[in-house]
């Protein structure tokens, strides 16, 4: 038995075939992904989860549209809130509790089996290998989007309305959310000794971001700015039909940093010094990007009902304001007025006033035991050295106060572009069969077929 000795001296790794090698690695990762039970479990579960969200949402939407009773205000009936967000809520659940484990498995399985030692010696850089894994994992996530796309198709089939920009924006949000999970799963798997430890790190991180969300609510300052980048908070912007450039950049940067961290820690031949230096450099780069992104205010309101924007007339009037506006809110984080004020006023103001500063000065969490001298419930506006207090959280009242302080004339309003809503009273015909029957059946059949063909 003789092998060609000429091949022995061929230089590898940097050969012109490196592009072909990359696609071979991608193909290998696909096979590995489809060999992973955790991925098939994710596929199996995502159908019924999306189905439950969709069927419940269609039922509630029909009720709100007047099935067997009085209709709610039609203006409040948007398919984004009523159908898409609940149906795609399953993906948030999957990205939090299922997808990270698929990501962890892609790294940990090779670490524990010793396959990593072979993989690292194959042609191509480590970055290429992690890149191939990341590409396949995200491709795998796109496959899981099928039930969601089926739900969208069914909704259209029922005669439902969809507004493409807000639908695509939501899909983008869920894709970026999955990227965050993938990046974090990779990093955890590369850092931890085994899959179990990586899973604990991932769950710890998830719980930590929830805690941060809770603690930072209504606090203002650095903590609230930081909390805006937790996975749940970032997704919320997309669910509201808002595409913020800083959130987009931050989600992308954090995900890529996760993959890069995996690249730094995955190779067992690297010294601790290299790993620590690499980690510090990566952390500094990420911090710089985040600080840079935090200063970017560009955003796009993709919602059909312009829920993230003031009227065009008000936006034009507000865009004339160049002076800084400082708002001091004396409302506790759990006060519904603060939620109302955040959603209906501050979110919109932040988009149009570049020099807006908001202070949250309530000393308690609930606001139930504030004393009169605490000025609870007051909202102070400060501009041009003038101060004014207003308790109302209604958009029109707040804007009037700001116009008064800025010394500009209030905008003239017109109702010509008012959102009329899309009531639709239908039953989710066939959805149960598709999501609870057909999807699991197809998933099991696909698993069986690919399992046999291997």
């Amino acid at each position, binding site marked *: *038995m*003789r*092998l*060609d*000795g000429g*091949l*022995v*001296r*061929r*230089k*590898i*790794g*940097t050969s012109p*075939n490196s592009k072909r*090698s990359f696609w*071979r690695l991608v193909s*290998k990762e696909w*096979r*590995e992904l489809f*060999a*992973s039970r955790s991925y098939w479990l994710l596929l199996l579960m995502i159908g019924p989860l999306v189905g439950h969200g969709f069927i419940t949402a269609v039922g509630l939407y029909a009720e709100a549209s007047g099935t067997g009773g009085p209709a709610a205000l039609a203006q409040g009936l948007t398919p984004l809130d009523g159908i898409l967000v609940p149906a795609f809520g399953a993906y948030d659940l999957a990205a939090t509790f299922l997808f990270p484990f698929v990501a962890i498995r892609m790294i940990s*399985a*090779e670490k524990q*089996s*010793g*396959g990593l*030692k*072979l*993989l*690292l*010696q*194959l*042609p191509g850089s480590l970055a290429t290998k992690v890149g191939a894994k990341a590409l396949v994992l995200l491709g795998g996530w796109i496959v899981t989007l099928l039930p969601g796309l089926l739900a969208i198709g069914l909704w259209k089939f029922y005669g439902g309305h969809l507004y493409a920009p807000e639908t695509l924006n939501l899909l983008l949000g869920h894709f970026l959310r999955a990227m965050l999970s993938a990046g974090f799963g990779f990093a955890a798997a590369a850092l931890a000794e085994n899959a179990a430890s990586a899973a604990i790190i991932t769950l710890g991180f998830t719980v930590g971001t929830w805690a941060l969300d809770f603690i930072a609510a209504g606090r203002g300052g650095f903590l609230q700015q930081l909390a805006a980048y937790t996975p749940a908070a970032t997704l919320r912007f997309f669910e509201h039909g808002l595409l913020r450039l800083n959130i987009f950049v931050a989600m992308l940067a954090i995900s890529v940093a996760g993959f890069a961290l995996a690249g730094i820690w995955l*190779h*067992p*031949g*690297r*010294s601790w010094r290299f790993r620590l230096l690499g980690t510090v450099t990566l952390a500094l780069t990420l911090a710089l990007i985040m600080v840079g992104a935090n200063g970017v205010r560009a955003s796009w309101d993709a919602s059909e009902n312009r829920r993230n924007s003031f009227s065009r007339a008000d936006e034009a009037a507000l865009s004339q304001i160049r002076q800084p506006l400082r708002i001091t809110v004396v409302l506790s984080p759990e006060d519904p007025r603060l939620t109302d004020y955040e959603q209906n006023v501050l979110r919109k103001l932040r988009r149009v006033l570049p020099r807006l500063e908001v202070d949250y000065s309530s000393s308690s969490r609930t606001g139930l035991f504030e004393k009169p001298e605490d000025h609870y419930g007051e909202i102070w506006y400060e501009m041009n050295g003038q101060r004014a207090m207003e308790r109302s959280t209604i958009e029109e009242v707040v804007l009037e106060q700001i116009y008064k302080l800025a010394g500009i004339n209030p905008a003239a309003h017109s109702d010509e572009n008012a959102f009329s809503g899309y009531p639709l009273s239908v039953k989710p015909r066939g959805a149960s069969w598709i999501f609870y029957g057909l999807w699991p059946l197809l998933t099991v059949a696909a698993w069986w077929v690919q399992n046999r063909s*291997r």
Partner: protein
Amino acid sequence: MTALLTVEGITKFFNQRRVLDEVGFSVRAGEVLGLIGPNGSGKTTLFECLAGLMPADAGTIKSNNKDLAPSKRKEALFYLPDAIFPWAEQTVSWVLGFFRQLYGRSEQQSSMLMETLRLDELMRSRIGSLSKGERKRTLLALGLLTPQPLLMLDEPFDGLDLRQTRDVMTLLKSHAATGRTLMLSIHQLVDAGRVCDRLVMLSAGKVVGEGSIDDLRAQAKLSEGGVEEIFLALT
């Protein structure tokens, strides 16, 4: 024969324990070099340091009198670890095909290896379902499909029966005859004596002897005796 690689002063600590102590030897082009020593003598650690899969605390590896950085080692050598279960869900056929395509080997070369290593009947089996010996033969095939000038095999005969051991020895010698250099880590001293041109003896992380059996016999000041006697005399 010229030196393909020169290993100098490789030292490795695990916590405070010195597991490799200034290990140095040379690997000559086209030879079958045996790294022998008892369990725990540092053979696998040395292989992993040489392959760049574990950072050494000191020492260098030179090729043509130039330092071979860990990141460049995979161009010069391929290391096949012992006791690994790579890609357990994939079939033998697919894994062999993956390596064959990755390294541009012909189907004929791959078929000859399969025949010699008696892998034909295992082609549809999954790696995870193979016995220790079957897995070893599959992994050997992967190693032999790689093109690097030096192939390092950790315990290549572990898990093989007598007949398979003899066949694999023949295969390795034939492979070396094509011009490829082999470095084998072996704890069975008798096997090492039968297949290797030269030996590096490792004991408690130190090189205690290097050379052909005759050279080592001279170093041990023995007039006769096999590898076992030489090893006992030198350690």
